[in-house]
């Protein structure tokens, strides 16, 4: 009888041990289930945010592409429709001026017309050049960039040291993106950074290229700009992503700003 009780006690204790192990496994399973469910949910959410970001990026890129096309069209129209007509006006006025039968008053009026026409032609040419630098199209990125540096340095105390290598594999639209990035970087350094010594290097790499821009300006808070970058910097970022590259920014009050753009290819 006593033996029976002891055996049943042993059985109860044995069942208890299995019960404990069972509960440990069940609760552990529950913890793991929640852990992996959470991971899955977060993965899905990250995916959603990435799709949204990609979409925004595409919109920005398309905006830039459309903007460039539109600039090109306006520059072309300015040249074809306005400049050529104004040239006709200028020529006709010159012909009239050569006519000996006109009096002084008329001559003065014609001179005035000629003066205004010449100035308007000059303005139209300048606007067209700013919209779409023809030198980029005709002589390539290296020459266009050098001319851009000359524009900024002539008649100012600003100094730009540069080392630009020729990138033969780059197509026209990507050349334009690099040109715009350079333009924006110089503008930012002068306008916001109050810099007077700039350095730009465009180097060929075994795959793609690298653009390094340094200034001696007052710098800015990179972390703050990451959250809320201005239109200028946003534009640079979008163009860099069109080029399929990466942008690295370092900035401090002591050293100024350094922008490095690495592209392991020549755009898409």
């Amino acid at each position, binding site marked *: 009888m006593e033996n029976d009780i002891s055996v049943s006690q042993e059985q109860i204790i*044995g069942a208890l041990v299995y019960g404990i192990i069972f509960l440990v496994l069940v609760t*552990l399973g*529950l913890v793991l289930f*929640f852990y992996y469910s*959470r991971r899955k949910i977060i993965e899905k959410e990250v995916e959603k945010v990435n799709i949204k970001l990609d979409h925004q990026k595409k919109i920005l890129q398309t905006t830039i592409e459309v903007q460039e096309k539109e600039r090109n069209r306006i520059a072309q129209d300015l040249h074809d429709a306005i400049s050529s007509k104004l040239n006709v006006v200028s020529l006709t006025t010159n012909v009239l001026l050569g006519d000996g039968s006109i009096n002084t008053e008329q001559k003065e009026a014609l001179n005035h017309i000629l003066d205004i026409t010449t100035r308007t032609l000059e303005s139209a040419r300048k606007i067209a050049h700013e919209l779409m630098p023809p030198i980029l199209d005709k002589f390539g990125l290296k020459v266009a960039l050098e001319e851009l540096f000359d524009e900024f340095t002539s008649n100012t105390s600003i100094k730009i040291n540069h080392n630009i290598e020729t990138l033969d594999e780059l197509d026209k639209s990507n050349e334009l993106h690099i040109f715009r990035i350079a333009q924006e970087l110089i503008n930012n350094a002068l306008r916001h950074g109050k810099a007077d010594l700039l350095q730009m290097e465009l180097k060929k790499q075994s795959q793609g290229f690298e653009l390094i821009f340094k200034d001696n300006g007052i710098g800015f808070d990179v972390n703050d700009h990451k959250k809320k970058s201005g239109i200028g910097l946003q534009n640079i970022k979008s163009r860099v992503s069109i080029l399929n590259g990466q942008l690295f920014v370092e900035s401090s009050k002591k050293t100024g700003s350094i922008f490095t753009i690495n592209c392991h290819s020549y755009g898409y």
Partner: protein
Amino acid sequence: MSIINDFFEYLIVVMLIINSCLYAWSCRTLKSSAALNYFTVYIIAICIVQFAATVLAMYEKNNLYLSHFYFIIQFVCLSLFFKALFTKTQKKIVNFLLILVLVLLGIQYYTTPDLFYQFNNLEIFITSIPLIVYSIIHMYNSLNKSPRYMYINAGVLIYITTSTLIYILGNFLATLIDNIAVTNIWFLNKVLYAMYMLLIMIEWKMIYQSVKSKS
């Protein structure tokens, strides 16, 4: 076997003291949340109870009545800990259960004071089940949010669930003092408790690292 058993006995006390010091230190020096404050109170109180139990056991005196303090302190502090992490409606449920359980236990001890000197099954059951439910609710809440105190939560869920089963059968096991299998069960409880303490320690490390990286 008895050496390993003793080792775990002292390991638990040492880990409890270390955890109490670590959590008390973080509460004083780091900017801590309400939940962390409640958890610190819990770990210190449990440390004192465990220490008292070990001392009484050393002098071979009855320490079983300390288990009631252990269960009630655990229930109150962990309820408040989870309450601090919960949403508005969930907080109301915690409040309701906290009052209900304490009133029920008050009535029970008033009517049958003898229960004080043995394992009280009703007490074990009604102070443990809500904590297990809270733990699962907290995991559910953390599904789409950044997880908070997940190591503590996992420890609470695993340890309290298994220890509840052991304690509920505590009175039965207490009648079989000399049985080796019974010693093994209490040993298993100690191992699980040491794991629980380890998870609490890991959680502290996580809290400390996150505060450090923020500053």
